[in-house]
């Protein structure tokens, strides 16, 4: 492959010479030239005619974004999204947000400065520059100082440039490069690259899935779950009867408990007469009744009490609650049935409070009225 001229270079071994050379090149009017030194040399920026770096503005912008972003985020969390009273302080205790705000401002400022410098000011990473891997580069990376005037400068004339550099006392040489070396560009849509991305995505998802759903359920990570305590709906090996959920200890009552005078054998319609519904069919009572009916009764009796739930066939079918029998029952009879149960229907005494039971009764009455409406109701 043919080699092309990149630049004419000169090497100096004294910092004073490089300053002089830089000034000479600048004064000769070249624009595309550079000075290479193993360490920063004072006064070189001026000699080259470089403008002050604008990096500081990037820092300022990043720091402001960091500070403003963090204090707004912390305030939003503390005031809007997750307000918590901590130590009796107001939600917006902004002095307490200062440390995190400060840290994030510093973090963003530093990352922004260095990131912008590397990516935009230097256009790095770039390991295929014509100067790389040349004898010139090897010298300036150790202890020499070099000037390199590029061949694509508007004023470039090889002879003149060589003359100029020689006059400043440099060891003149030329830097060549091959086209092929420079034209290599990584392709965004290269299938290999896309496969790589897909592979990474799959590996990450699989790893995440395994971690959160499998690994965390292995010992020792799951030991928080294996505690010697009873969980709802599980058996207990501790109690002789094997029930995890316990009834109140014999002879004790819970606060607010009123003993129920009738036993399982009592006839619903006869004891029902002595039980008086204390609730009026208000909206609140009906809403409560509806909620509890859907929670406790509808799984067997169906959403409208017609005895047609999904349990049909898997469990002795409950009768409809719209039968004449139930409709003519006093409220107390339904209450009694809920309280003590009836044949295969269990007792709900301990799950449903007294008031809730009456609310359910009211709601059943509403259902019955709706399904067996009289002519007068329809008008």
């Amino acid at each position, binding site marked *: 492959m043919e080699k092309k001229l990149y630049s004419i270079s000169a090497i100096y071994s004294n*910092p*004073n010479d490089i300053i002089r050379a830089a000034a000479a090149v600048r004064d000769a009017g070249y624009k595309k030239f550079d*000075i290479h030194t193993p*360490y920063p*040399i004072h006064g070189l920026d001026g000699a080259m005619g470089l403008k002050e770096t604008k*990096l500081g503005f990037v820092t300022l912008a990043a720091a402001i974004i960091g500070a403003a972003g963090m204090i707004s985020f912390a305030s939003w969390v503390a005031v809007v999204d997750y307000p918590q009273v901590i130590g009796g302080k107001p939600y917006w205790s902004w002095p307490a947000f200062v440390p995190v705000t400060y840290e994030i401002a*510093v*973090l963003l400022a530093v990352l922004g*400065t260095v990131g912008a410098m590397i990516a935009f000011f230097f256009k790095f990473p770039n390991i295929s520059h014509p100067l790389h891997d040349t004898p010139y580069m090897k010298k300036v990376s150790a202890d020499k100082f070099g000037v390199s005037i590029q061949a694509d400068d508007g004023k470039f004339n090889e002879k003149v440039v060589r003359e100029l550099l020689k006059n400043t006392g440099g060891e003149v040489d030329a830097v060549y490069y091959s086209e092929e070396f420079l034209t290599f560009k990584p392709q965004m849509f290269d299938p290999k690259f896309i496969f790589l991305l897909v592979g990474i995505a799959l590996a990450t998802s699989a790893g995440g899935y395994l971690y959160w759903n499998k690994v965390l359920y292995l010992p020792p990570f799951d030991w928080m779950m294996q505690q010697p305590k009873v969980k709802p709906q599980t058996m207990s090996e501790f109690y002789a009867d094997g029930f995890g959920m316990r009834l109140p200890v014999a002879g004790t009552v819970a606060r607010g408990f009123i003993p129920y005078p009738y036993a399982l054998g009592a006839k619903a319609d006869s004891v029902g007469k002595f039980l008086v519904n204390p609730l009026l069919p208000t909206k609140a009572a009906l809403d409560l009744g509806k909620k509890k009916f859907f929670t406790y009764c509808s799984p067997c009796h169906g959403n409208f009490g017609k005895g047609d739930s999904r349990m049909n066939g898997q469990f002795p079918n409950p009768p409809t609650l719209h039968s004449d029998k139930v409709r003519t029952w006093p409220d107390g009879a339904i209450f009694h049935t809920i309280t003590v149960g009836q044949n295969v229907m269990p007792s709900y005494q301990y799950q449903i409070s007294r008031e809730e039971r009456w609310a359910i009764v009211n709601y059943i009455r509403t259902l019955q009225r709706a399904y067996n409406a009289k002519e007068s109701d329809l008008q």
Partner: protein
Amino acid sequence: MSSTVLDYSKELSVIEGLPSAATLDEMIEKPINDFPQRRWFIGLAITGTMLMIGVVSLTWLLWKGVGVWGINQPVAWGFDVVNFVFWVGIGHAGTLISAILFLFRQKWRTGIARFAEAMTLFAVLCAVQFVIFHTGRPWLAMAWLFPYPNQHGVWVNFTSPLEWDVFAVNTYFIVSAVFWYLGLIPDFATLRDRATTTIKKVTFSILSLGWRFSNRHWQHYERAYLIMAGFATPLVLSVHTIVSFDFAVSIIPGWHTTIFPPYFVAGAIFSGFAMVQNVLIITRKAFKFETLITMDTIEKMNKIILVTGTIVGYAYIMEFFIAWYSGNATELFVFVNRAFGPYWWAYWTMMTCNLFTPQLFWSKKIRTSLLASFILAIFVNIGMWFERFVIIVTSLHRDFLPSSWGMFVPTMWDFGMLIGSFGLFFTLVLLFVKFLPAIAMAEIKAVIPGAQPTHHGNGASH
């Protein structure tokens, strides 16, 4: 430049003249190129064993839970937090040397800056492991340390000093790592151009990002370095300030004092310099870096140790004074109990190693003796570890209710983790001196005599 073989082990002061730039490169690259010496392997064997002790203790900790440690009520913070504060403190010297001394234009820092920065990173790593593992179920720690949107609708508490700590330590680690890497870029480029094998060439090419020593780049680079130093300086001070808030913002007598932030920062610099001192002296001996890590540097480090040690001693005494002057009976009890209670031995170890023995550095003879510097620096490390022990354990073991009083007794797993953290630290240091340029080449070159143009005046200031 001169190609005469220099005796590296001969000490030359920075002022009198360092070797030429080319020989410098050769010298700094030497440990990287040489097949590791026996000494290095022996060192690695020792630190590796310590590290394995740590790994075993850690495995047991993860299997059984934090109950394997000696912590319990009332002393719920034991070695975990002691070690965390100890290591974070050590991590403060690096950025102090690379940032604060940079801003103060202290030339002597160049020889040790890279080293100190690396030690910062390693020390912070050692510190972070303790806070992560003391959360109990560290595999979920991510979820409660960092604010991220989650299905529980829960956020972290931004008003908690512990959360400030998460932000401070992470920021500090990231910024230190970036600072360190930024300094390494030109050195990677030099190593790339000196590389003799393909592996080295490829590795250093990638690591150097394609650095070309262009002055158009140096211009921004130098500004970036200055900006970073400017940001890192208050950052160093903020990190240990925030660590001290973990204690000072609580209402435990013995913790709840306003003197904590400056006192902690001084202590951090004190312990950090002592640790850097120890590692520097070992490196100077092991790699024959007498030319670069000079007696002058070591003496200056000793002076800083003396100053910060005295500040810390002042804080100890001031705490006592305030405990008495405040007229608060509980406060006074805690401090008297510290010095004369069941943990009196820890208190007096701390006082001896931190306040009394560093005073020996007033003598120039001791200050400039390698052996004395090494031993006294070890004393400082011991003393500073005990300082954290005293602050944490003695303040907790006497609760407000005498019925809850108790003692803290560390278990072997506590010691295992402590040994392991030293193993981790020194293993990383050994790997670092072997595989990376332990001394900043480009920076040192800029300060050797004749490195800067004469017409520009003083020349060697960087």
